[in-house]
């Protein structure tokens, strides 16, 4: 029961309750930093007209990553890059199949019409969050282009969705979990059961 209700924030608790599960740090702070720097340069290379680019993070994991990428891009381009956050929970396709998800604030303090929107998320897995995000973004306007940047692509797609920028490809089994923690101590953990 407890195992079923865990989320990214309380994976440690699960480790205490299920000592059988095994967790490995697959990216440490340095590796995350390098991956984000490379991703930012790839975004800059792909989009020459920097004034058109805006970053939108998907809560919770994508928001701090969008901020990190925005900071690096601002240094590359010498202009400040607009950053927003887009909650996708109202657009999910599984709303009546599990407890209602926690909703996070959507903050898009700029016009997305005609912009190149880079959606940012921490882990790309089934692709369902990104499908919901594309749908949610529709309500805010018609961007010129939408691109996708993720820190981890762990495979196992349910939908025809592909990231434009990937920090690291991590082959996983379906029953494994990937936890991205960005904050005081950056790390990516692969948990096996």
């Amino acid at each position, binding site marked *: 029961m407890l195992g079923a209700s865990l989320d990214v924030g309380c994976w440690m608790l699960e480790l205490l309750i299920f000592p059988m599960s095994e967790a490995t740090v697959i990216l440490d702070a340095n590796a995350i930093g390098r991956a984000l720097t490379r991703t930012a340069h790839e975004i800059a290379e792909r989009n020459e007209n920097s004034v058109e680019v805006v970053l939108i993070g998907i809560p919770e994991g994508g928001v701090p990553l969008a901020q990190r990428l925005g900071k690096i891009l601002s240094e590359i381009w010498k202009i400040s890059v607009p950053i927003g956050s887009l909650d996708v929970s109202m657009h999910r396709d599984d709303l009546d199949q*599990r407890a*209602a998800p926690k909703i996070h604030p959507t903050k898009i303090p700029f016009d997305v019409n005609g912009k190149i929107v880079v959606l940012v998320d921490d882990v790309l897995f089934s692709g369902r969050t990104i499908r919901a995000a594309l749908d949610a973004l529709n309500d805010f306007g018609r961007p010129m282009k939408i691109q996708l940047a993720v820190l981890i692509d762990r495979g196992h797609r349910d939908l025809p969705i592909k990231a434009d920028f990937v920090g690291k490809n991590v082959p996983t089994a379906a029953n494994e979990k990937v936890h991205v923690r960005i904050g005081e101590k950056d790390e990516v953990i692969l948990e096996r059961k």
Partner: protein
Amino acid sequence: MSWNKKHLLDIESLTADEIVTVLDTARAFKAVGERAIKKVPALRGKTVVNLFIEPSTRTRISFELAAQRLTADIVNFSADASSFKKGETLKDTAKNLEALNADFIIIRHSASGAPHFLSRVVNASIINAGDGAHEHPTQALLDAFTIREHKKKIVGLNVTILGDILYSRVARSNIWALTKLGAKVTLCGPSTLVPKTFEQMGCRVTHEVDEAIRDADIIHLLRIQHERQRKTMFPSIGEYTTLFGLNKARLAKTKSDALIMHPGPINRGVEIDSEIADCSRSLILEQVTNGLAVRMAVLFLLNGGKGPQEVAT
């Protein structure tokens, strides 16, 4: 964040955590209402029935718009234009609605406990939109939302509810919600309408209006529910206004940041002076706006199924 309920029948059975979950969720839905496109597909394909056996404008329209903004289909059903007039029972009406595959039934009824009864006889999610003098849970949730938005917290606030408490479902739901969230609730009004027994619900009862509102952060006014009173509970409306109506002189003796709330419909010149109802300290119309967001949040949360909250990435 926690929500595993199928029905919203009352505030009494909710935990503080569940109330806060509704308020937090409502914040996101309020933002949706401020966008150019005010609609999200969260309840696409669901059917909502407004089963209003008692008259209502505000609550019915609010639920109707809430369902529409979540992309649900909604049917309105009112007592005077229905088979109730032909002698059909509430259970049979509900069973018929269920046969049409209604996913949600929002019920307002003059009998306390009618929503609880429905939740036992049909499979749809039941939302109580007011049952007799018992509870009006979404009103209390929108009131708590409005208070929290203005005062940034609820714990420790002095909230005075002034008026007809005895016949008020709004008062009962508010007392439950506010005390669970840690506010200090004072009830005031004529002794016939504010009996001391309400102290058992964890609030203070007084019949001195100036004393009741002196230290209040929130003054919550209630209408006299003539339709529920079997006999006259006080000598005259004029006397009620003189003794308990909120006017400029009374308001001058309250804290300068005390805010005024009223669930509507207001009776101008009875429980509230017209001028005060429209002043900057009055949150009456904001309550209406927030009601829509709160009802969207309630429908959204009840729509969730069983199982973990975790979502597929």
